């Protein structure tokens, strides 16, 4: 339609100004998308939780261990179809100052763990070899790629929680079932850890970091949680049983202050977008005051004028927004590459894309508001007299 053609031509009038505005908006939209991606990445673990898994951990903090003896009783609770367990090993790989060297190192029950976590897929022969070899380990594909681990390599870890020098031979590499699965973990035998600790620091053996339960019917979860926690309420090591989702969420909540700060900054960015765009549109509209008056003289209505102003605003916002959104992907990827294991899953969510588009559209509308009102209110006579 004609209005569109005029809008497009108007935008091209001051090419430099239009380009700068588009650039400014695209940078702001990109930051918005980037920050939101960080926020969503933080809760990626929550999203990928399984609906039928529960975690049992020490009631005070998951960094305190639970006795291995609990396993027997927990597995006999009706509704629990499988029990597995794991210990956070920690330790230091090569230079701890290099962020790339940080990846989760976990001692697990070799027999049950991979069944409990079917999203970790690997060839059956690799799994079999792992199960047989006590000092072996399985690493995720992402970390294998980043650090060049191949089957047969020995990974040396300097223990901190469990002191001493440990070597684990890679016997398998697992792939995540979908994009949201963590592929950065190194998993080895809990039995191996237990035996060595018994030798090195007698008295520390027989401890589990946390238990993982598979539950037949998710609706029974609250009841099962109560049963377990009640059982150990008055023990030295009390338990807290929760769904996997709640467990992951508790990690996210730990950093809630940081996440909230990032969200606040996102809002500030929206404000900046609007200011930059509004500035340009106000200038543009003011320059064309006489033209708008002429159009009115010819017989175009105030709504036509409003359409011209909003159209230009939306067009610039749209192009800037699209550009910014496009830039978000490579910037996010670059950031993720700097900290590959910090955020094991770092994708730009669909919601983020949608929100960024909404923000751009909203900015387009708001920026045009003031000049539109001014143009609508101005009488033709004043408009003709005006000097842009």
């Amino acid at each position, binding site marked *: 339609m*004609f209005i569109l053609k*005029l809008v497009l*031509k*108007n935008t*091209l*009038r001051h090419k430099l100004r239009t380009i700068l505005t588009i650039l400014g908006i695209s940078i702001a939209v990109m930051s918005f998308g980037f920050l939101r991606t960080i926020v969503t990445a933080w809760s990626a673990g929550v999203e990928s939780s399984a609906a039928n898994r529960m975690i049992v951990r020490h009631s005070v903090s998951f960094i305190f261990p639970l006795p291995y003896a609990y396993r027997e009783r927990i597995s006999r609770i009706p509704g629990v179809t499988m029990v597995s367990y794991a210990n956070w090993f920690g330790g230091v790989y090569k230079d701890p100052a290099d962020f790339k060297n940080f990846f989760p190192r976990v001692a697990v029950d070799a027999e049950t763990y991979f069944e409990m976590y079917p999203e970790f897929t690997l060839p059956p022969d690799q799994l079999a070899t792992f199960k047989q070899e006590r000092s072996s380990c399985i690493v995720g594909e992402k970390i294998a790629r980043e650090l060049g681990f191949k089957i047969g390599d020995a990974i040396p870890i300097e223990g901190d929680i469990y002191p001493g020098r440990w070597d684990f031979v890679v016997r398998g590499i697992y792939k995540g079932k979908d994009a949201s699965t963590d592929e950065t973990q190194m998993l080895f035998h809990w039995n191996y850890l237990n035996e060595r600790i018994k030798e090195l620091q007698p008295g520390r053996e027989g401890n589990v970091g946390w238990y993982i339960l598979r539950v037949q019917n998710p609706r029974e979860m609250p009841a099962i949680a109560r049963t377990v926690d009640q059982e150990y309420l008055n023990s030295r090591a009390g338990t807290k049983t929760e769904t996997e989702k709640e467990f992951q969420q508790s990690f996210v909540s730990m950093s809630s202050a940081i996440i909230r700060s990032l969200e606040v900054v996102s809002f500030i960015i929206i404000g900046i977008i609007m200011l930059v765009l509004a500035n340009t549109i106000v200038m543009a509209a003011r320059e064309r005051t*006489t*033209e708008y008056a*002429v*159009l*009115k*003289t*010819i*017989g*175009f*209505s*105030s709504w036509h004028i409003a359409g011209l102003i909003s159209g230009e605003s939306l067009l610039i916002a749209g192009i800037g927004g699209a550009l910014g959104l496009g830039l978000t992907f490579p910037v996010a990827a670059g950031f993720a590459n700097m900290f590959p294991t910090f955020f094991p899953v770092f994708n730009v969510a669909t919601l983020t894309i949608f929100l960024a588009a909404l923000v751009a559209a909203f900015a387009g509308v708001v920026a045009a508001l003031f000049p539109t009102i001014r143009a609508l209110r101005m*009488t*033709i*006579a004043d408009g*003709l007299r005006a000097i842009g």
Partner: protein
Amino acid sequence: MIEVHNISKSYRRDSLEIPVLSNITIDVPEGEFLALMGPSGSGKTTLLNLIAGIDRPDSGSIVVNGTDIATLNESMLATWRSHNVGFIFQFYNLLPVLTAFENVELPLLLTSLSKKERREHVESSLHLVGLGDRMKHYPKQLSGGQEQRVAIARAIVTDPTVLVADEPTGDLDRVSAGEVMTLLDRLNKEFKKTIVMVTHDPRAAEKAHKVMHLDKGELT
């Protein structure tokens, strides 16, 4: 054709009320070429604006071709203008981003004519003003006189009943001014257009049938 009856108009600047026109009554018969003259601030442009329907009087009536435009509301006025008035400005006021053709086409976009029909009207208008060979040019590629002629083409493309011109030669050199006035003369004599023109230029006023003088908002 145009019956201005007892109109008054004053402007409010802050808290002051400045009277611009006081009880003006004019009759402009069909086919007339009227020139309004007077010193700055005499109200002649205001009167022109009122007749053209781009301003409203405080009191009185303005009947153009049977319609009292003082009673029309904003949007009705806009529609009325698009059918009945062609406006020519001192500073041409062409849209710089549109070609001569597109500028002239503007008023037609408010009608229901097809693209082909619009093209016909535009081309004939531009030919009439002698710029048939410059249709694709942008205003900045035209001289002042040529720009004004495009503006005239725009003013007549909808075949309006009244042509209203505010200092049409004010910004032109003698030769261009002469061309423009010849054109207006032709529109009046050949095409029977009613023209109301405000001007300072005595040479422009020569072409008019009748000259009226305004001073301090009153006819003298």
